[in-house]
């Protein structure tokens, strides 16, 4: 099981050029849980994640891991504790799956060290956990979107970190692959206790899979807590500028956001939704 780490953000201000994206943000990442960060486009979700993994230096404030500022830790030491899967990772042409996953062992290997049995074991373990063993000798270019994403997760796993940050791991995947990836991440969290922080653009998936939900708006944390606490109609209006109904999803028991647009509304939204001609959902107003 993983060691519990404390990851805290204090008074963080981030920006690019003369644009400020995040201002005076405080956040505590609950250890051993799955946290999802949601918000409108360009609200700073990816920026925040990148700062947490030290890719972006803060203008003010700190990111503190186990009491030490992330920006002062040696790179490899940080990489042994915190892994990141960025938004569009690049795979060199012709690289095999086993090779790519093997790259994840870099933080554990010094300049002169050769491959140890422990390294091989870690790689094998990562392949097993992501069900990609059968793909080990295939070239990464040939894989489907879902398979490729699993391989990247395997690489992050081979790093054997206790914290895993993922920047939009489900964007560009079709829905079955999205569920596949999110289920895998949940497995990792439940069986190994890996703390997971992921940026998701799909609000409903975030509500279903997260233990802890953080909603960002205008560079600040608008709300944080359990999905039931955060995903409310006022919340959706404040963060996304969208009117909605929030109901309980009968499949998962978690909140489900139903957007209200200008068309295709069966009844007056004030009175609640009745059964449409499609679907078995009957909702009580």
């Amino acid at each position, binding site marked *: 099981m993983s060691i519990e780490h404390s990851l805290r953000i204090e008074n963080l201000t981030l920006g690019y050029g003369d644009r400020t994206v995040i201002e005076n943000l405080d956040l505590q990442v609950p250890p051993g849980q799955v946290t999802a960060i949601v918000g409108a486009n360009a609200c700073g979700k990816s920026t925040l994640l990148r700062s947490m993994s030290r890719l972006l230096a803060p203008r003010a404030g700190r990111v503190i891991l186990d009491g030490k500022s992330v920006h002062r830790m040696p*790179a490899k*030491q940080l*990489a042994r504790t915190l892994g990141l899967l960025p938004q569009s990772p690049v795979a060199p*042409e012709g690289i095999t799956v086993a090779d790519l996953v093997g*790259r994840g062992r870099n933080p554990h290997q010094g300049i002169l060290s050769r491959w140890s049995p422990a390294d091989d*074991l870690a790689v*094998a*373990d990562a392949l*097993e956990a992501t069900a990609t063993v059968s793909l*080990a000798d295939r070239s990464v270019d040939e894989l489907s979107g879902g398979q490729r994403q699993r391989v990247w997760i395997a690489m992050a796993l081979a790093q054997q970190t206790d914290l895993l940050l993922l920047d939009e791991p489900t964007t560009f995947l079709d829905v079955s692959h999205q569920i596949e990836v999110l289920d895998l991440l949940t497995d990792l969290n439940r069986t190994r206790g890996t703390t997971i922080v992921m940026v998701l653009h799909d609000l409903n998936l975030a509500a279903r899979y997260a233990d802890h939900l953080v909603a960002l708006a205008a560079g600040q944390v608008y709300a944080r807590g359990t999905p039931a606490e955060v995903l409310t109609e006022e919340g959706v209006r404040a963060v996304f500028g969208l009117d909605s109904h929030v109901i309980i999803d009968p499949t998962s028991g978690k909140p489900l956001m139903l957007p209200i647009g200008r068309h295709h509304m069966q009844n007056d939204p004030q009175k609640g939704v009745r059964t449409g001609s499609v679907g078995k959902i009957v909702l009580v107003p």
Partner: protein
Amino acid sequence: MKLERAVGVVTTAQTIRNSRTRRALRRRSVVGLLVGIIVVGFIVTLMVGQTFYPPADVIGVIFGQDVPGATFTVGRLRLPRASLAILAGLCFGLGGVTFQTMLRNPLASPDIIGISSGASAAAAFAIVTLSLGDTAVTVLAITAGLAVSLLVYVLSFKGGVAGTRLILIGIGIAAMLDSITAYSLTQAAEWDLQNAMRWLTGSLNGTSWNQALPVFIALIVLAPVLVGQSRNLAMTQLGDDTASALGVRVERSRLIVIVTAVGLIAFATAAAGPIAFVAFLSGPIASRIVGPGGSLLVPSALVGALLVLVADFCGQYAFGTRFPVGVVTGVLGAPYLIYLIIRTNRAGSSL
């Protein structure tokens, strides 16, 4: 269940280990083969020529004996030339593959992003307009090569270096420098022209030990540093963000790598001129014979050395006229280059 899974993992680990060992073996044999071919080629270029010298004479000269008839031709003419061919080829091979790996694009070769152009422009200008001597020209060429890379780096830095921007800016600067080279050459007097042609395409004619020595020193000093960074280079292939997440200090590593690669290329260009396409082609060729996975630095260097050695030999004896090595690599390399571009674009672009 847990035991089964554990056993499964161990078996997988073994399979992975085996496949890695197999690949390492292939690499080692390819590298060994290349070294062997280069040594044989070296000896052959010393033996064959206008006059043929038997191996015994050649080996004698190499070890410093005074063999009548052979000492001058082999020792003073052919030996420095063959040595520089190998040294320059090693430098170009290393430099080329480094840039291609770092910029994640096999078409991003130092040939076209300005470094060779900078060194040759400085050298051409120094020879024709300033009428400087050999050493001064070398120094100037090296300084220019480094200065141009610094310029390209700085100009493409906008909160980090985007590979695309660096390549495009390099192409722009190369065009500017090429025009300066061409201009200097138009100012050249007749007898200067042959000498100056070297700065257009690269030539090993009339090589002396004075020219080969700086390249040797550069290789000894810079190559180990570069090879030491090979793992960091491999990580940056995965994208800057991923590399950073894996514990690589990306900007620092990139700086070291650029400085050493540029140094190697500048020294080699100062001695032999911008031998066309060696830097461009060594990496892709090495990649095909060694296979994916594993560092390409050493194989690429060896391929470069072999290319220059063979091309120079062919340029001297295979065709009617004596062609400088740069023209041979240019013309023979061109079709492979085009093929490479087509293949790169079609498949997506990385080395």
